Every structure is written in structure tokens, then in C-alpha cells.
């Protein structure tokens, strides 16, 4: 990847925000390189949206530093807004305006010169697969198309840094894949993307992740390295009636956790080469010689649970 050796696209240091007695964000720090898709991952209430709003300059941080595209956001939020674009969870589209009218509204808001407006807008509409829909009312678009129109509006002033808060919530997998294809194209033009998501499968697609928990970043790395850092290994056991086996396996030595999936069990063990034969023997002793037992790659959710353990919920 062609990463600029200069200043990072986003740098955050010792960021903090309280709401009364609630410590929403505490000592959060990370940097995002140019051209990265950086994910803020964690459950609702972990501090993702609050961090996002501070990055966007719409919420004032209590402490810490934020630089976006070289601009100090706390010192000069208005200037920072020319370098970034923020798409909140509920992006404000005007449902009774057409696609083209929504785009021109945002172009006006962001001060895009009229001469550039038409060419930029048609280029973005083509990339988003919305060409030909210019006259349709935004209210009559499907969920996935609305999402893409929001993205077009957010990109009309050619920002260097794009901040997306749960951009594909409620969007089906096909539309979601289209949306991601646009993000990848943007990335190839050098735009840096920071995205908050509660969906672990979405997190897998980011170049790096910050795991948020209770207002703090507990881990920050690439998805592959986070998976490698998971204590133990994950074993999948596919068999008829997996529910009945669960209690048996949970008590075995070296078993750190057993999760009942729809048609199999996911068992986290301390040491796969040592425990696989023991698991197979336990299954064999119950006559389950047909069960498929295999080591599988953990998902980000497995990593999250293993690294953070049971938190209060």
C-alpha cells in the first residue's frame, strides 16, 4: 500500500470525555495512516460514537489532542471540517428532495465551487451506482441506496478523511458489499476512513481495529494479529445434537469456553495439538465417531470475548 511517510491522517492522544459522572471516553489514543480503513469496534455504549463526534469536531473533548489531516481539531474545528467528512448514524437526507437536490444542498453547505459541483457529483453518483436516479426523491430510495446517497453527499467536498458511524446498520449484506466496494475505491485514491461498528464481521474488513470497551481502547492492531493474539485456539465440532455435548466438554481440562452454535460447538482450548486428541477421545467414548473436529480461525468476536473476558452485562 502506498502510505505517505508524512503525518498520519488522524492522530489521537489521551482523549477524554465525561458526561456528568459517566466517563464516556478515557485516555484513548491511536493513529490512522493515510489510506487506511480503521475500525472502532465495540458494543453500544463503549465510547465509539463519542470518540467519533470528537474527531469530527462536533463535540468538544475534555482533554487530549486530535489532529486530522494535520489540523488541530480542538484548536480549529472549523478548519478541520474542510478536511474531513462525518457521516453520523442518521445522516440527514431530505426525503422530499430529489437525489440531485440533496447533493447540491450539501455542496452548498460545504462551499463546493459551482464549477466543480456537476463533475464531482456525476463522478460520485457513477461510483455509487446511483447514476440515472438523480430525479428520484430520496424518500423513495431503498435503505441501501439511501446509505449510498448519504456517502455521496458526505464526499462532495472531496474530504481527505471520512468518519463513518455504523454506516451499514440495517443494510442487507448485498447492499453492504456494494457500500464496501465504494470504500475500497476511495481508499485507493488516498482517502483515510475511520469507521465505528458494533458488527464483528464488518470489523474483519478493516485494515486495523481499535477494540473499545467501557470507554477505553483495550487493543489496537490488524484483524490478523488480533486473532493471533487470542489466548488458545478455536476448535469446531460438528455433530448431531451438539447441545447435549456442551456440558461434557465444558468440564474437560484445557477447555476455556464452549459456545453452542446452530449446528455445531465452538470450543476454545488452551493448546490445540494437545487437546484435539482428547476431544476426539471424549466424543468417541460417547459413540460420536462421525463428529467433525477441526481447528478454525477465530472471528473478531471470539477475540473480543477471549481478550476482554466477561464484562458486566
Amino acid at each position, binding site marked *: 500500500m502506498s502510505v505517505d511517510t508524512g503525518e498520519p491522517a488522524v492522530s489521537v492522544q489521551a482523549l477524554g470525555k465525561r458526561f456528568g459522572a459517566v466517563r464516556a471516553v478515557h485516555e484513548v489514543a491511536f493513529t490512522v495512516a493515510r489510506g487506511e480503513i480503521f475500525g472502532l469496534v465495540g*458494543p*453500544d455504549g463503549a465510547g465509539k460514537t463519542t470518540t467519533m463526534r470528537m474527531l469530527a469536531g462536533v463535540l468538544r473533548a475534555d482533554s487530549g489532542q486530535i489532529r486530522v489531516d494535520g489540523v488541530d481539531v480542538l484548536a480549529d474545528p472549523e478548519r478541520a471540517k474542510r478536511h474531513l467528512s462525518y457521516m453520523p448514524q442518521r445522516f440527514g437526507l431530505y426525503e422530499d428532495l430529489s437525489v440531485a437536490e440533496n447533493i447540491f444542498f450539501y455542496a452548498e453547505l460545504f462551499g463546493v465551487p459551482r464549477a466543480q459541483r456537476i463533475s464531482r457529483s456525476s463522478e460520485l453518483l457513477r461510483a455509487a451506482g446511483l447514476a440515472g436516479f438523480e430525479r428520484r426523491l430520496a424518500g423513495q430510495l431503498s435503505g441501501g441506496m439511501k446509505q449510498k446517497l448519504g456517502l455521496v453527499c458526505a464526499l462532495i467536498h472531496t474530504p481527505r478523511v471520512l468518519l463513518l458511524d455504523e454506516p451499514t446498520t440495517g*443494510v442487507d*449484506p*448485498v447492499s453492504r458489499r456494494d457500500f464496501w466496494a465504494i470504500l475500497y475505491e476511495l481508499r*485507493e485514491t488516498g482517502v483515510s476512513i475511520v469507521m465505528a461498528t458494533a458488527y*464483528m464481521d464488518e470489523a474483519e474488513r478493516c*485494515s486495523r481495529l481499535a477494540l473499545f470497551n467501557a470507554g477505553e481502547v483495550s487493543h489496537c492492531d490488524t484483524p490478523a494479529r488480533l486473532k493471533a493474539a487470542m489466548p488458545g485456539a478455536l476448535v469446531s465440532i460438528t455433530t448431531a445434537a451438539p447441545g447435549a455435548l456442551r456440558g461434557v466438554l465444558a468440564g474437560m481440562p484445557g477447555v476455556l469456553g464452549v459456545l453452542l452454535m*446452530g449446528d455445531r460447538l465452538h470450543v476454545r482450548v488452551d493448546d490445540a495439538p494437545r487437546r484435539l486428541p482428547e476431544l476426539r477421545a471424549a466424543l468417541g467414548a460417547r459413540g460420536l465417531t462421525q463428529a467433525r473436529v477441526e481447528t478454525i480461525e477465530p472471528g473478531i468476536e471470539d477475540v473480543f470475548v477471549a481478550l476482554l473476558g466477561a464484562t458486566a*452485562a
Partner: protein
Amino acid sequence: MNPATEPAVAARGLSKRFGAFVAVDHLDLAIGRGEVMGFIGPNGAGKSTTIRMFCGLLAPSAGSASVAGFDVGTQSQRVREHIGYMSQKFSLYGDLTVRENLRFFGGIYRVPSREFAERTAFAMRMAGLEGREDALVATLAGGWKQRLALGCAILHRPPVLFLDEPTSGVEPQARRQFWDLIHELAADGVTILVSTHYMDEAEYCNRIALIDRGRLIAVGSPTELRAHGLGGELVEVACEPLGAAIKALAGAPGVIDAAIFGDRLHVVLAADGPGIGGLPGLLQARGVRGGAIRSVAPSLEDVFVRLVSRGADARGAA
């Protein structure tokens, strides 16, 4: 008729038209007692319309469905007495306490007063809320709220439960606890239909029904769908630049599909094509710096997107 073997939910040629628009088109589906069935499809595929018919809220235009042994068209009141419903929005009252919410939903579902104490105690125990009866619901963490919503939805012991994206946005540990509860209910014979966009929720279902444009396009366990749904072998290709790599592979012989996934490509290869060995040549011809190519297990999302776009291709060709 044997209630133990008769499906808890059965649709036969179930259809719904709105004017000229066919929302649900001859759906045939049988869900066994104690089964956790996932119901998956793009926006507008007909999921909500089907579930509204299953709940007795919308009359079918053609065909029929039975839920818990009652016909949704002619016995809709009986159907509604035998189902529970929980959506991702929980529909709890934040400014009421845990106990008050349970009392409210117990009233709505007409739980007999002699059973009420026992049922609320059960719901409280299940949700892990014992000792917090007087807490305002608004002050509870997401995982608790969600388990309370489930408790409210099953106060009247419904044999069939409909869940709409039940664990979206919930903290991972709490979400796993929730699915444990669902599997416990299923083990007690409750039949559960989970409608969702999220493939990680689908993984917790015993079987998945995939619906697109009102039609059922695949039914099977997650493992079966992963094994057969793609129609080819999935490989992951690490290379640069990805844009050029996609152009090199899309439409190449033996390549069924190529899509960007994170910083890699996911490529579906036909069984009768050149296979993995053919890829480095195709990539080099386009100046792509190729890296590791490895076979990977498809996710349910890979399968879903493939099956839905195959349907779209077929319509495009017709």
C-alpha cells in the same frame, strides 16, 4: 395428527400480493418443534410480510400457513395467543421498573393471575435480574434489557417465538448469553424464527431459510449452506493493487466471482476450471503484485451474496 411431529410453523404456497406487487410468492416452509430457524434476505425480500402473516396480522392472498397448529387465515386470534414476538427495539418502557414492565406485558398477554408470580419469577431468573426488580429499565445495560425483553415476550409460554434482529448492537458476552437462553428455550420445545440481516446471528440457527424477491431460494444448516451454497471453491488472494486485481479476475475463465474483502480478494473458483494454479498468471498479466493464495472456508455472507446475485443474474439473462 401427532403434535410432536407436526411442524410448529408450516407454510404451503403462502403468497401475498399488494396490488400488482408480489411480496411473498408461493413460499413452502416447515419448521419443526424446538427448532431455531433463521430467516434471511435483502431489504424488501418479503421477510416482514411473511412474519406478519405468521403472526396472524395480515391475511395471505393465496396458500396457507399454520402456526402452533392454528391456521393464520381463519384462526388468527388463536395464533396470536400462541406466539411471542421480540424486536431489536425491545419495546420496553424505560421509565418503568423491571417489575412494572413484566406486570404490563403480563397484562397484555393475559397471563392468568394465579400463574403470574411464577412466570415473572421465571423471567427474572432467566434474565439474571433477580434483586433488581425495582430498577428502572432505562438504567439497565443493553444485555439485561435484551434478556428482560425476551422474558416479557415469553411470559405467556408461547410455543412459537419470533425474534427480529434480537442481538444487534449488544456486547459480545451478553449476546452469547442471550443465544444460550434461546437454545435452552428450544430444548424445552419452543420453536423460534429469527429474522435478521446479520450473518453472525444466522450462525446460531439450526437451519436457515434464505428468501429473495418473495421466493425461498435456499434452506439448510449453516454447515450445509457453506458447503454447497457458493457453487465453487473460495480462495483468498493477498495482492496489490486490489482494483487492478478485480479487473484481472472478473469474468476470467473458471472464476465465478471476485470481490474485495478487507485488504484481500475473495474469489470463487469453478470446480471444472483451471483452479488456484491459473490465478498467478492472470494477476501478473495485469501488473498485480501477487502474494499468498489460500483456500478459505466461506462465511455465510459469502454464500448469501452469491445466491442472491445468482438470482439477479438469472433474471438479467431471462
